[in-house]
Each structure stands twice: as C-alpha cells, then as structure tokens.
C-alpha cells in the first residue's frame, strides 16, 4: 500500500518512487544537469519523506568517507619516509597484482 502510494505521489513534477531511483546518483554528483535533476532538487525540498531518505544516504556517505585521525596519517607518512632506510625485506612481494 505504502509502495503504491509512493509510486503515485508526485511533488514538483516528479514521483517519490523516481526520486528514490535517482537520489543516490544525485548525492554522488553523478546525475546530469537537466530538468529531471532540477525537479528532484525541488522535490527534496518539498517532500519530507524523500528529504529524510536523502539525508540518511548523505550521512552514510559522510560516515564512509570520514577522515582518519590526522595523527595516524602523520605516523604513517613518517613511516613511509623511513622505508628506504629500513633493512631489506624479501624480494618476493605478494598481493601487489591488480585485481
């Protein structure tokens, strides 16, 4: 019932169902400029349910892309600088082939 309602519900000239199909690409910056993108943006401002959905995906993306602690990056950068001075390790290197 809810699914049918979403399929039928339209705001700003685009249905909630269509917004759900496009919203992740939009948040990834992969949705081309054009009328549909403009309608999607307007829809997200007008529709609370779709707005919350978009916000959740935005938070998931932000969480995944969260910067690691700067002190960890600093330690690893210092380690990287010291590698040429480390004693030799075996020549065979596993795990460097392309996937």
């Amino acid at each position, binding site marked *: 019932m809810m699914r049918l309602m979403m399929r039928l519900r339209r705001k700003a000239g685009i249905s909630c*169902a269509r917004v759900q199909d496009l919203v992740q690409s939009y948040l990834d910056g992969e949705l081309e400029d054009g009328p549909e993108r403009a309608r999607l943006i307007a829809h997200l401002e007008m529709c609370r349910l779709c707005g919350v*959905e978009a916000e*959740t995906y935005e938070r998931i*993306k932000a969480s*995944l892309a969260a*910067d690691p602690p700067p002190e960890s990056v600093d330690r*690893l950068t210092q380690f990287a600088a010291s*590698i040429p001075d480390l004693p030799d390790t075996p020549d065979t290197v596993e795990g460097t082939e392309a996937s």
Partner: protein
Amino acid sequence: MDDTQEALTGKARFDHFVVPEIDVMLRVARSITGHTAEAEDLVQDSLLRAYRSIDNFDGKHARAWLLTIVRNTNINRNRRQRPTLLDDPGAPEVEGRAGTSVSTEDVYLDGTFDASVEASLAGLAPDALLVVELVDLAGLSYAEAAEVLGVPIGTVMSRLHRARRRIREDLRHSGLAPRRFR
C-alpha cells in the same frame, strides 16, 4: 601517465603515487579491520609492499592499485597471524537501539552511527564492498570504478546503490535510521 611521471623511479615514484594516498589507504584499512590501530599496522605493511613493487606499477589508477595491495596484505596477514576470527571475545558489538528515544542526530554525533555503518560493511557481499570502497572510501567516480573493475557503469551503480540500501536497512534495524518507505 605523462613523461615526467614515467621518468620517476624508486623513492620519487613512491612519494608521487603512494604517499598522497595514505589517508585513503587508512580509510579503507579501517573499514576492513574495524580498528584504527590495527588499520595503521595494515597500512604500514601495505606501504612496504607498495614500495617494493612501485617500479612495476603502470601509473594508472594508483588508488585502486593501492586498495588491492591493502586488501591482499590483509588476507596474507590473517593467514599468517589469525587462523580464526570467529567468536573473538574482544570484537566490538553494536547494540540495537530500536525503541529508544535517541534521535538520529544524537547517534550521528556520538559516533554510534559511524560504528554501525562500519559494522554493516562487514556484511556486504565482496563485490558490493569493493564498489563501496572504490567510490565512497577512495572517491572514484562511477566511470573510474567501472574502468578499474572492468564492468559497465550500470553495474557499478546497481552494486553501489544496493550496498547503501543494505547499510540503510541495517541502520534502520538498529533504530538509527527512519523506516524505509519503499
């Protein structure tokens, strides 16, 4: 790769292609291990491997190449050090919060949301996890990820979107995201 990059060798090549990607390597390592300290060890080992093989690297898609090294290094480390990870009493648990009155904003700010997203990654299928790592953690575009994986862009999109929906569902079951309406 331009002529200048091609002329680089050894340490200079490592500094050019690898060192700027340390934060991305750490982000991916953290998603694999779930612990920052363990992730640092993994990146350290991965840097050694990258340094040893830098002159064989073709200069294309450094992030994807390094991500492969991090993943393979982790597999080798687990083979060597930890024959079984089942029933690890030290493993962190993410408690379900369904039914509590804590707002999404609160759990986002206190780190619970991040911990749950990280826990959810572990449940993704390997091909879905790889796309999430390439796009969300390493910052590749859909087209770049498709080229790296040798699959159509549509496949990248469907795997990525499905993976995020799965994460979203896991968050919902933990009471950290609103009910999905579709």
